[in-house]
């Protein structure tokens, strides 16, 4: 038996995985799950895919049934914001002033979409992070032809542009880099994506968003920093995200520079752990702190954080274990699926070993400091793609990984 309380702050994929792992691991005390959105835990990747296209209704996104949630015996606080954490006393403060004294806390507050200052309330301007964001944009795109500008050509902007184009809208994709997703995936894959967007009729422009033009409370165009303007009746601001750490800033014991800094066990302080998009933890295999905004990491990291918290609290007899995942992400655009294992972000070297734009096939290797750290592929048979994980499961010498990747994909 355990008494006391654990609070999990953030009720999306990571928060849900954390409370489930805590119950599985033997925590029988109070378990508070706090989410600032009013919705039961739902899945985010479909927001820019099946939900935006109208293929799925919102009810398909629920991650658990109410029966499954009931079985967890949660003190569920939805539509509730945590406003402070005192790490020393493990006390969470809620927006209404209530203070929750806890034995342990797992921070899983994720990220927020970056937006432009002063555009709140302007009709036609959207971000795409939450279910409500996605439903708003979906409604906007479900009728007559729109003139949409997607500001930002990262993963989210590219996926949304593809869906909007398939819905028949006029789409302009604007990025500071001429090739879509290039900062993450490099030249070869960026070229392949540019070919696909072009072939489907997306207009691509190089530029940086400066502001919007409005008339009568409605967006009429976007302004770029080079002084040019693009007419638009709909704008998706997809210029990245920021870790939701404002509520943690008052506690000087916590390092909230680019997420909540944690050790290899996902611990930010005694009894305080973090998981998912918000967590910047030390990955021993990569020898540096990483913060990963991928769906799979949310679950895996939450499971580890929960296990380690229970070990620290003595609920289990386990030793705490470092979190050393092989990250995975995917992106769907025009029926093409990009898949990547390992770490691409922060690479100082990227090499495309296979590129066939006609067959929509690509394979590329990414690395840093002479080591190969990540691999990306599209258009290959599933068995081959799965085999690529082993190429970079542990960062190793570039040349060895390069040879193994070539052998795996049959490149030149």
């Amino acid at each position, binding site marked *: 038996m355990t008494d006391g309380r654990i609070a999990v702050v953030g009720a999306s994929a990571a928060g849900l*995985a954390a409370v489930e792992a805590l119950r599985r691991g033997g925590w029988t005390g109070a378990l508070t799950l706090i989410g600032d959105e009013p919705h039961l835990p739902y899945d985010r990747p479909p927001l820019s895919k099946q939900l935006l296209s109208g293929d799925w209704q919102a009810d398909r996104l629920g991650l658990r049934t109410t029966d499954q949630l009931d079985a967890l015996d949660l003190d569920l606080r939805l539509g509730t914001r945590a406003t402070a954490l005192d790490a020393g006393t493990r006390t969470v403060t809620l927006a209404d002033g209530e203070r929750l004294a806890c034995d342990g806390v797992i921070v899983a507050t994720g990220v927020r979409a970056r937006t432009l200052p002063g555009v709140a309330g302007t009709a036609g301007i959207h971000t795409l992070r939450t279910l409500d964001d996605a439903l708003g944009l979906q409604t906007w795109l479900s009728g007559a032809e729109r003139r949409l500008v997607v500001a930002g050509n990262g993963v989210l902007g590219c996926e949304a542009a593809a869906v909007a184009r398939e819905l028949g809208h006029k789409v302009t994709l604007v990025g500071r880099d001429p090739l879509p997703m290039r900062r993450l995936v490099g030249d070869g894959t960026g070229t392949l994506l540019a070919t696909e967007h072009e072939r489907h009729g997306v207009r691509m422009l190089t530029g940086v968003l400066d502001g919007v033009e409005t008339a009568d409370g409605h967006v009429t165009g976007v302004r770029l920093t080079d002084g040019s303007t693009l007419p638009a009746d709909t704008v998706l601001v997809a210029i990245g995200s920021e870790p939701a750490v404002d509520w943690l800033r008052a506690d000087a014991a916590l390092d909230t520079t680019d997420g909540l800094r944690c050790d290899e066990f996902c611990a930010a302080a005694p009894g305080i752990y973090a998981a998912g998009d918000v967590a910047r933890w030390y990955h021993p295999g990569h020898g540096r702190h990483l913060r990963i905004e991928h769906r799979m990491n949310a679950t895996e990291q939450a499971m580890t954080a929960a296990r380690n918290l229970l070990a620290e609290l003595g609920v289990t007899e386990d030793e705490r274990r470092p979190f050393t995942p092989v990250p995975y992400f*995917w992106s*769907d655009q025009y029926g093409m*699926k990009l898949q990547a294992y390992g770490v691409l972000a922060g690479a100082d070297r990227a090499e495309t070993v296979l590129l066939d734009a006609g067959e929509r096939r690509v394979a590329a290797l990414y690395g840093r400091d002479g080591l190969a750290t990540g691999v990306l592929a599209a258009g290959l048979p*599933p068995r081959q*793609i*799965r085999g690529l*994980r082993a190429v970079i499961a542990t960062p190793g010498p570039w040349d060895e990984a390069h040879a193994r990747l070539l052998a795996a994909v049959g490149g030149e």
Partner: protein
Amino acid sequence: MNITLDEDKCCAAGQCVLVAPEVFDQRDEDGIVVLLDAQPPAEQHAAVHEAAAICPAAAIQVHA
């Protein structure tokens, strides 16, 4: 144990096959999950639970 799949949700990540290759496979043409054994033996249960937990599309349901 009884396993059910939501093929429509499956995102073809293949993580289930990496964790429990005796129980899950992927279709060659699109990578969608294929269930090899809906009622796997006890020695597979831990791997199946792991696969269901980490599935990035929440497409695997495990029933007692």
